């Protein structure tokens, strides 16, 4: 049984079909990348999966259970966590407190939540900054706070929305290594939206390509970049024709 | 009998529409709720009242005075208070405009005491005409008519002038508007000025047949909110239709449920609207 199974997902906004009959599977332990030009519908797909948007049609099965359209706090409790493209930092709370909010998903006790949060902060190498406020920290650190918070909810499937965007090459490599270690250590499955090819290609086992709401390709990273449809989506018909 | 009530309700409705117009404009241009809206009306009332009694002239000449004072009050509020509030959290905004309301309300109480006043002399006061089985007081009739005219003028300005387009652009997307070269700061101030102007005008119109007292503000604030909520926050047409409906609710409801329940009915209407149809009749669906 696949960890996540999406079948014929459709999401429309008025006249615009943002997700057009998208289907795919993610097995436990996979790292799956989701790429596509801007406006392809990647974040919309994420939002439909976590229940932030209610899809117009199609089903989402998570661990065999139908979670289509379920509210995001419910899907989170079942093991689906996501980060946001623009870090949704909670400025009035320290880094530790931010992470504890995630940890409280699995416990009612402050001390337990704190312990869990501290462990996660060590994984993302923010334990020294635990009493700082997010606004005092650099952007790369804020991304790690996002990550820490999501990890604290002990997810089975972690969905990352452009976690490498806005980072320098070094920071990107850093977070790449960090994610690999965390993934192996916790037995996570990752689903990653990305534009930064240096990040998504090395880390993914498989890559999905979205364009105009439709899934146009799926496969290993090496073969994806050679596919005509993919090149066309990114670079246009003229470029392909001229090759 | 019932026809008389309905017609009078509609007349009140036109005035309510004008009262709500200012609130709709302000809320449309920047998402801040003016709790002091009713107090601006109260100021307009007193402006007209004083013009009529001190000068003394016909209360109708108090209209431009009230409009001007309302306009200035709106602009002053924006530059002295509102533009600072806009930077803060919502709690600060709400309580900030609330404090403005308290300030104006008690200022009026301080200056005028708590007495109820009424205008007794004027072209429109005290007389009525008969239309079929309906008795239509001139005061109400005039107020309704002038409300409709003012409403239409504002509507035309908003939709058919360059200035109006600039204002609406600021309402729809402030950042984009400012990139287009629109002085959004000035637009916001003018929105407040317009808000104050229209509601001050409404207040002056009300003096032809309504009591004037310092605490009248809260009631009209709630009426304005209910009207705008019914019409849909952000919709000008909505305030018009909403005003008519609320006018009917007030008059018809007041007749059947008794005068002491008149206002509770309006608050209840607000409650029902926001719970069951928060986008109102014409507002954007969330």
């Amino acid at each position, binding site marked *: 049984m696949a960890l996540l199974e999406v079948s014929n997902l459709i999401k429309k906004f008025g006249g615009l079909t943002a997700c057009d009959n998208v289907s795919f599977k993610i097995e436990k332990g996979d790292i799956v990348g989701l790429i596509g030009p801007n406006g392809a519908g990647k974040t919309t797909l994420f939002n439909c999966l976590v229940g932030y948007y209610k899809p117009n049609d199609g089903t989402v099965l998570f661990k065999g259970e139908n979670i289509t359209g379920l509210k995001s706090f419910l899907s989170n409790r079942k093991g689906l966590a996501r980060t946001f493209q623009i870090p949704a930092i909670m400025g*009035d709370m320290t880094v530790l407190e931010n992470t504890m909010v995630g940890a409280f998903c699995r416990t*009612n006790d402050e001390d337990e939540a704190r312990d869990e949060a501290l462990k996660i902060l060590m994984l993302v190498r923010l334990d020294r900054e635990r009493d700082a406020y997010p606004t005092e920290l650099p952007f790369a650190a804020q991304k790690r706070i996002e990550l820490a918070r999501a990890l604290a909810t002990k997810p089975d499937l972690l969905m990352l929305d452009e976690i490498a965007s806005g980072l320098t090459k070094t920071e990107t490599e850093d977070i790449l290594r960090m994610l690999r270690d965390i993934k192996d250590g916790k037995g996570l499955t990752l689903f990653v939206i990305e534009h930064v090819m240096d990040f998504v290609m090395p880390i993914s086992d498989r890559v999905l390509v979205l364009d105009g709401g439709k899934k146009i390709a799926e496969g290993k990273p090496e073969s994806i970049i050679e596919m005509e449809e993919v090149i066309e989506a990114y670079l246009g018909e003229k470029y392909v024709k001229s090759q | 009998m019932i026809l008389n009530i309905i017609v009078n309700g509609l007349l009140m409705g036109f005035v309510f529409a004008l009262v709500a117009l200012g609130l709709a404009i302000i809320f449309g241009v920047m998402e801040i709720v003016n709790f002091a809206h009713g107090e601006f009306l109260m100021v307009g009332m007193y402006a007209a009242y004083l013009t009529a009694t001190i000068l003394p002239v016909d209360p109708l000449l108090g209209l431009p005075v009230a409009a001007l004072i309302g306009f200035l009050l709106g602009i002053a509020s924006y530059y002295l208070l509102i533009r*600072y509030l806009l930077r803060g959290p919502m*709690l*600060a905004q709400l309580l900030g405009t609330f404090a403005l309301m308290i300030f104006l309300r008690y200022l009026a*109480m301080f200056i005028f005491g708590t007495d109820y006043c009424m205008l007794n002399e004027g072209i429109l006061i005290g007389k009525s005409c008969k239309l079929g089985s309906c008795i239509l007081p001139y005061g109400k009739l005039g107020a309704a008519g002038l409300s409709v005219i003012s409403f239409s003028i504002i509507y035309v300005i908003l939709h058919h002038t360059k200035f109006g387009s600039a204002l609406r652009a600021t309402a729809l997307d402030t950042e984009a508007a400012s990139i287009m070269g629109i002085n959004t700061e000035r637009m916001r101030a003018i929105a407040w000025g317009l808000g104050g102007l229209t509601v001050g005008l409404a207040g002056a119109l009300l003096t032809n047949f309504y009591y004037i007292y310092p605490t009248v503000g809260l009631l009209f604030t709630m009426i304005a909110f209910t009207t705008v909520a019914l019409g849909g926050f952000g919709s000008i047409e909505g305030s018009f239709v909403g005003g008519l409906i609320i006018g009917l609710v007030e008059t018809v409801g007041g007749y059947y449920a008794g005068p002491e329940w008149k206002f509770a009915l309006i*608050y209840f209407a607000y*409650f029902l609207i*926001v719970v069951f149809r928060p986008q109102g009749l014409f507002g954007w669906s969330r």
Partner: protein
Amino acid sequence: MKALKKALSFRDFHISERIGLFLFIVICLAFPWIVKESFARSVMIDFLIFCLYGIGWNMIGGYGGQVALGQSKNVGMSAYTVAMLMILWDVPWCLGAAAGIIVATTESFVLGYVLFRLKGHYFAIATIAVQLIWQQIFINWDWVGGNRGLELPIKETPNFIYMQFESEVYYHYLALSLVILAILSMNWFRKSKLGYQLRAIKANEDAAESLGINIYWAKVTTYCITGIFAGLGGAFFAVYYMYIDPYSVMHLELSILIALMTMIGGAGSMWGPILGAMILIPLDRYLGSWLGASGFVGLDFMLYAIIVMVIAACEPRGIWGIIERALIKRGNTNGSIRSI
């Protein structure tokens, strides 16, 4: 048991805050022995009751950022419950207060359930509308006295069953114990799962929801807890003033005052409500009596309004925000002054 330990532990506060709290409690305890003048004592009791209201409101309004402007209806409903039970069936105060709290909390639950789907301004105005409706109902409801109000039956004093006393000193200690209870509850709340959830909701609702928080229920639950404190205040009000009517116990000004006061002191901070009450209540009572005597009605409210406008415009985090900034500047850096 663990909850009690949490409530009693202030160790994560900066030493200056702990000293401040200690002094505050000591002064309040000693107050009736130092100050014998009746008016001053009554101002102190008013202050304590507003601390009670404010600490309660701070949970939903300050921490949660949900501006519920209808607190006084809960105060009033509890007061009326206590009064009616005492009048009709001679019910002792403790039971009456419990009933009053249940009434207030139930109303909060139902109302919260209906209204918390609304956000922002819509919500705030809706709470005002409900408050005004309730007041109107009580004004027209003859069984509970209508607009003539209710007088509580006078019992032989001192009376611990019906909480009626000749001297204010008893009322002072009753109010103080309620305030201490509120402070401890608040201390528990801010360390609890609900407290963290609420702060997350205030910061970013969508993110909070994605972290497994059921936003709706978090808000409703907190609103009910707030109702408990309003209910306690109302129950006290009934036996302290011995007379209640819809204008004194269910009026919009009270709701607004509670919110204003908490905001001035610093909404969302632990000490905000107390600071706000400390400033506003004596100001209100002394200024009110002085101005009232000289015939300057309304000037006091104008003054508060100006204070609030200045604070709302310049330092929305209130007086506590100002204190925090000053202390941080002086070198107590690194967030060791806990604002929450």
